[in-house]
């Protein structure tokens, strides 16, 4: 697999970050996904996806300021890069294109 391709879970994480907006970091990404997928996700899985997406160039990140709720420890905020955004758009287009070609899916 080429390093620039998106995995399933990575795609979900990437979209969750787009949904959350500017304040996305590991914990609220986890909450967002757990909420939508209705299942528990371990934090390490989120971390893995985030750091890999950053390595692949779909995400960029910066360290935020000191926080109160976590003993003053700073958060790393992630945001999508242009490549990240276009990658989701491209996948969406492919999916929709194919979805339309399936006959009577709603009846299925």
């Amino acid at each position: 697999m080429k390093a620039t391709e998106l995995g399933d879970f990575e795609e979900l994480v990437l979209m969750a970050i787009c949904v959350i907006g500017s304040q996305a970091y590991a914990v609220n990404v986890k909450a967002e996904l757990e909420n939508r997928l209705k299942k528990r996700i371990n934090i390490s899985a989120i971390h893995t996806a985030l750091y890999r997406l950053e390595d692949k160039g779909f995400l960029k990140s910066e360290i935020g300021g000191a926080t109160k709720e976590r003993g003053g420890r700073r958060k790393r905020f992630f945001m999508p890069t242009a490549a990240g955004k276009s990658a989701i758009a491209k996948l969406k287009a492919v999916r929709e294109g194919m979805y339309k070609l399936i006959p009577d899916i709603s009846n299925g």
Partner: protein
Amino acid sequence: MDKKEKLSPPKWADTLLSWYCRNDRFEEIQGDLHELFQERINEYSMRKARLLYFWDVIRCFRSYAMKKRIYSSSSHIAMFKNYFLIALRNLLQYKTYSVINIFGLTLGIVCFTYIFLFVNHELSFDKFHENTENVYTVPLTWHFGATVLPTARATSRVGPLLEESFPEVTSFLRIKNPGKTIVKSSLLISQEHQIFYSDSTFFDLFTFPLLEGDPQTVLREPNSVVITSSLAQKYFGNDWQALSLVGKTLNIEGVEYEITGLAQEPPSNSHLQFTGLMSFSTLPESKGGGDFSGSSYMTYISTLGGVNSLSLDQKVDTLMANMFEEGTSVTLDITPLSDIYLESRMETGLGPISDMKYIYIFSLIGLVIILIACINYMNLSTSRSVERAKEVGVRKVMGALRRQLTTQFLSESVLITLMALILGMACIFLLLPLFNQLTGKTFTVVSLLNSDLALALCLIWVSVSLLAGIYPALVLSGFKVNNILKGSFKFSTSGSWLRRSLVIVQFTISATLIAATAVIYQQLNFIQNENLGFDQEQVIAVPFSDDVKKGLTTLKSELGNVDGVLNLAATMQLPGRVQFESTMAHKEGEENRHLMRLIPGDVNYINTLSLKLMAGEDFNDLRDKEKYQFIINEQTAKFFGWDLEEALGQPLKIWNSEWGTIIGVVKDFHFASLHEEIKPLIIFYQTEKYFMHRNLVIKLKTNQLAETIEGIEDTWKQLYPEKPFSYTFLDDYYGKLYAKEQKLGKMFTLFAVIAIFIGCLGLFGLASYTAFQRSKEIGVRKVLGATVPSITFLLSVDFTKQVIISLLFSLPLAYFLMDNWLQSFAYHVEVGWGVMIFSALLVLLIAWVTVGYKSVRAALTNPVETLRSE
């Protein structure tokens, strides 16, 4: 404060996180985890939240969080590539040292592995039974007054008695070895030695798989027999499997036995080696409870799980204490099944027996030999350090850490050990037949391919690499850069005392082994040449069975007529084996009975074995047919306080009832092995009553052995065409009594040779290195007029000193060890100066030849060669 602490995640989980997590991501990851923890406090109990936090820490142990090494992984591999490349170049450049190192290590590894295999097999004896830990044997020890007589077996009454008396004893098993049995099928008549009588509980107590038959019932009915596949093949041909043997009969000693089961061969690591088992219920003694006379039944008991054998032992002793009349008592030693082979030291008569002592000796030798090989590596690596010093210096200047250099030199020893290991494995498989021959084991290449050996080899690899490599690695990596690069670094003198001590250790070991070997051979030689007091040459022994015994008088007279037969007599067991040990004898008017050894004799017994009569005469048929005739040895006469002449005509009583007269006194002879002293002996004969006799001893004329034996066989065949004929030469038989010692001698020779050889390899390497180091010095000395002998002396004197010091250690050590060993012989040589000096000279000579070759060559070199270039 207190509350806050309680509300925080476990500290040690944080410590774990900080240990593995890379610094640049530590803060954010820990922050995320803490946040999750705070959320969970509201949702779950504190305990669970903390547990989940710990779980998260564990789950986060993934590549994104892990610390990176100091050097990145790709350069790490490149570095190792470089290490191995340099190691290979070094190996190729200094071929002599490489060969010495690899060859020495290979030899060491081969020896060690073989010893490991041997010891492993010995230790595995009787551990394959499912019930091993709950099965015990009960050897019985007789106490007659002050005389203690231990045996491996018990009487037939002991098993049932223990089962009745103790609820924790669940069942018992008696096995009786009837000795030789003659087995007859439609195909073959032959003799078997390993068909035993056994109680029906045999397959309960032991795990010997049955091919056919029900383990519960096969040995229940009288005249049942279970045979192994090899016996089935022998008596029913190769297609025995097609014959459905169960239900067929086999004739054993003239009685038809029904085959009720077929058993697999017992594994080689069983102390019990049977080819057939006859039901114990066949024997008359199984009917009654059995009595306490005789002790020919190997008895096993099985207990409930978790029974303490010590407390049972005490209870048994209390039970046995009141069983016997005054003066006689027995004790039973509850011995675990798995201890029979190595710990009990009593012949069971049912299979092989060994001794834990030998396991220790061989393990020690294995370790010691591999140590010698490791010392070679250490010495050669450190002594050649000057060659590697520049490399170390340059690496250090380029920024190599000491740890990295240590890794480098260790990886070299790992590489060399691996080469030795691969070579060694090839040797192990190739030399396997030789090893089997030496140890009497039956390993095959396939049987070696198991996890035990793989594990052992890995362990050898790692430990030898470390043992041999760690010291040189530390020395070489510890050099000071400025010393090396200034050029003032010549030869590491700091390590030379250690190197000398290591050489001394090597030679101490080798010389001890050599001296020990010399003593073993001296003793073996002594045994072979010791005057046994009877003639064992040109005497053959022919065993016969009970059927033959009925016509023994005819057989004897027929055989007496065969051309070339000088004398013959019937007896029970051959001289060299202990006869009845437990026989009581006493003289008239005395109540005390004494423990004596007994040999059933015959007319001409004394003549046939060329025993020396001191008084009286040989057995003959002219005397009172109802009474025993006795010939005693000098020890017996002394025991009863008689002069030789005085003893003649004295009445004597053996067993409980039989009175007889002493008709002769014979000079003491070694009727038992030389391990024990000559004890009081009575040879008895009653006219033409041969109820105990089992062997004919026949003295032959010297010049026509083959023809005479043929003649004897023909006569036998005419009289007993159905009975197999076999014979042994008495001296062969006698030699076999010392098979264990002979095997030990061979093993020691081999190991001593290998040890001294590996040691000399190292010495050779060191000597050639010294010669190389001092080549300029030698050149200058020669120019100034030094002679070849004086230079040779100069080069050898240092090594000679080391060897002499090692001799000072090894000779007393060998003396102590071997004196100890010799004590197991009642008749033995003394460890004399002669042997010690011989061993010392041998070691010195070997060392001189090793060092001298190099020294002489160095001394002969034309000084021009060494001094020309500077």
